[in-house]
Every structure is written in C-alpha cells, then in structure tokens.
C-alpha cells in the first residue's frame, strides 16, 4: 500500500476518537439537568438491547446457530452465572451443536 493508506488510517483514527473523547472530557465536572441524567442512566440497558437484537440471531448463515446460541446465553445467564460462564457455556453449546450437524 502507498501513502494514501496511512493518511486513511490517520483519518479513521481521528474520527473514531472524537466521539469517544469529547463527551468524556467536555462533560467532566459539569452537572447536567436531572432529566438528561436520567436518560443517560437508561442508555446502557437500551444499548445492550439494541446490540443483542436482532444481531444475535444472524451470527451465522445457518440461523439455528443464532437461535440456539441465544437460548443458551439467556438460559445460562438466568441461572445467575457470571459473564465468563455465560460466554464459555454458550460457545460450548454451539460447539456441540456444530459437531452434530
């Protein structure tokens, strides 16, 4: 690759960094209105919902991977297992499934 590649990587680095850094530094020490604070406190759970659905079902061309994986993940998580067990357990369930297909 030539010079343009490095300019592109630099550009990508800058535009990726800006949305990450501006709120964390600019909002430091500032008190936001109560309603805005409440909305921001809602964000993590809403983000998780949007990150999980519907993408979890489409991890592979074969949709059964997504469906079985989702059931495994939710099933294991509801037993109260910690995150690492949920991750490794779901992988294990799908590994077993893929041996049988």
């Amino acid at each position, binding site marked *: 690759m030539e010079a*343009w590649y490095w300019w592109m990587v630099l550009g990508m*680095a800058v535009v990726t960094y800006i*949305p990450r*850094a501006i709120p964390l530094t600019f909002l430091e020490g500032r008190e936001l209105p109560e309603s805005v604070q409440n909305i921001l406190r809602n964000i993590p759970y809403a983000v998780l919902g949007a990150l999980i659905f519907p993408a979890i079902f489409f991890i592979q061309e074969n949709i059964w991977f997504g469906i079985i994986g989702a059931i495994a993940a939710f099933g294991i998580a509801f037993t109260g297992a910690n*995150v*690492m067990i949920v991750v490794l357990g779901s992988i294990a369930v799908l590994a077993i499934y893929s041996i049988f297909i």
Partner: protein
Amino acid sequence: MDRREFAAGIKAGTSIAIGYFPIALTFGLLAKTTGLSLWEATAMSIFVFAGAAQYISLSLITAGVAPAVIVLNTFIVNIRHFLMTAALNEKMQPDDRWKKALYAFGITDESFSVLATQKGNKLSTAFAAGVILIAYGSWIIFTAIGHLIGANLPQFLQASMSIALYAMFVGLLVPSMRGNRKVISLALIAGLVNSFFYFTEWLSTGWAIMVSTLASAIFIEWVSRKEVKE
C-alpha cells in the same frame, strides 16, 4: 493507580478479550487477502480500534472507494459512541481530563457495556484501564496472529465462537433485568426498534443502534416521569 482496581478491571474485561479473539483473527486474515502487509493490518487495529469500521474499510478498499469516503464512513459508523461516552461519564469517577482523554480511546461497544453495567456508583479510572487494556491487547495481538498464520479457526470453532460477544452482552444484561421492569422495557424496546430498522433497512447499523437506544431511553424516562406524577 490502584492495583486492585486495575486487576479487577482486567478480570472484568477478559470476556471481551475472548470475544475479540475470533473477530480480530478474521480481520487479520481478511486484511491479508485485501493486500495489506502485517504491519499495515496491525497498525489499523492499534490506531483505530473499532471492529465494525475496520471490517467495512477492508471491503471498501477492495471496492476501490476513495480513502476520504472510507474515513467519512468510519465517522458515521462510530457516531453512536457520542451517546455511550456521554452516558459513561455519569458513571466514572471525576478525574484529570488528560486521563479521561487517554482511556476514552478504548471505549468500544464492548468495553462500554462492561463498564456501564458494573455495580456501584463511581467507577475508578484504574478499573476502566484494566478493562480496556486487556480488550485492546487481544484486538491487536489476534489481528497480527490472524495475518501471520493466514488461516482461520476450524469451521466448527469459528461458528461457535461467533456467539461470544453476544453472549457477553446477554450476561451483562440479565443480572440487571431480574425483577426490574424498567431495565427489561429499556432493552426490549431498543431491541424491537433496532430490529425494525434492520428488517426495513431504513438505517445503517451504526445509526440504527444509536436511534433505537435514544428512542428507548427517552421513552422510558417519559413514562416513568408520568408514573411519578400520577
């Protein structure tokens, strides 16, 4: 730097490192087939550190798209992080601006999710540093390894490991969902709105995640205010 907090962060970030493993490996492999050298591929993971945007850039390079357009596209894909870091700021302990500017580099969908769902009110900078370092390390190292070995994992492992990050998101969400109607509604509404955008293809993934998150967070705040008033 508090060592115990840092170690706890490393531990909390380990599931991200596992989830990044297959994705970074595949990225390294695809970068090689795109014609990038080992250093070029690894440098992108070092300097950009954004999964979706890096993948998209490879397909755009192959398609011969202008570099400026690739940069613009990267920005659009990552705009949602404005929302995440604004939310995360409420959760983090106050600290020097330069320290926050430093760890801001490592806020991805995954590190945000791990940090934002931690119990307790104010997260320490050391904890965030731990979460980010192990995730970032995994991303870089496995990009390089993917390029070096130039082959993918065995198909069954590749397929089963593709659940890892989603399983992590589920594992982070479910403990807060238990008996908490508000959390359940927040996740459910955002997931439904996002699915709507997915199937109608009205918005690209980055925008869809941002709009559905914001819609759900604002709607639930509005509903819970009304409930308080009544």
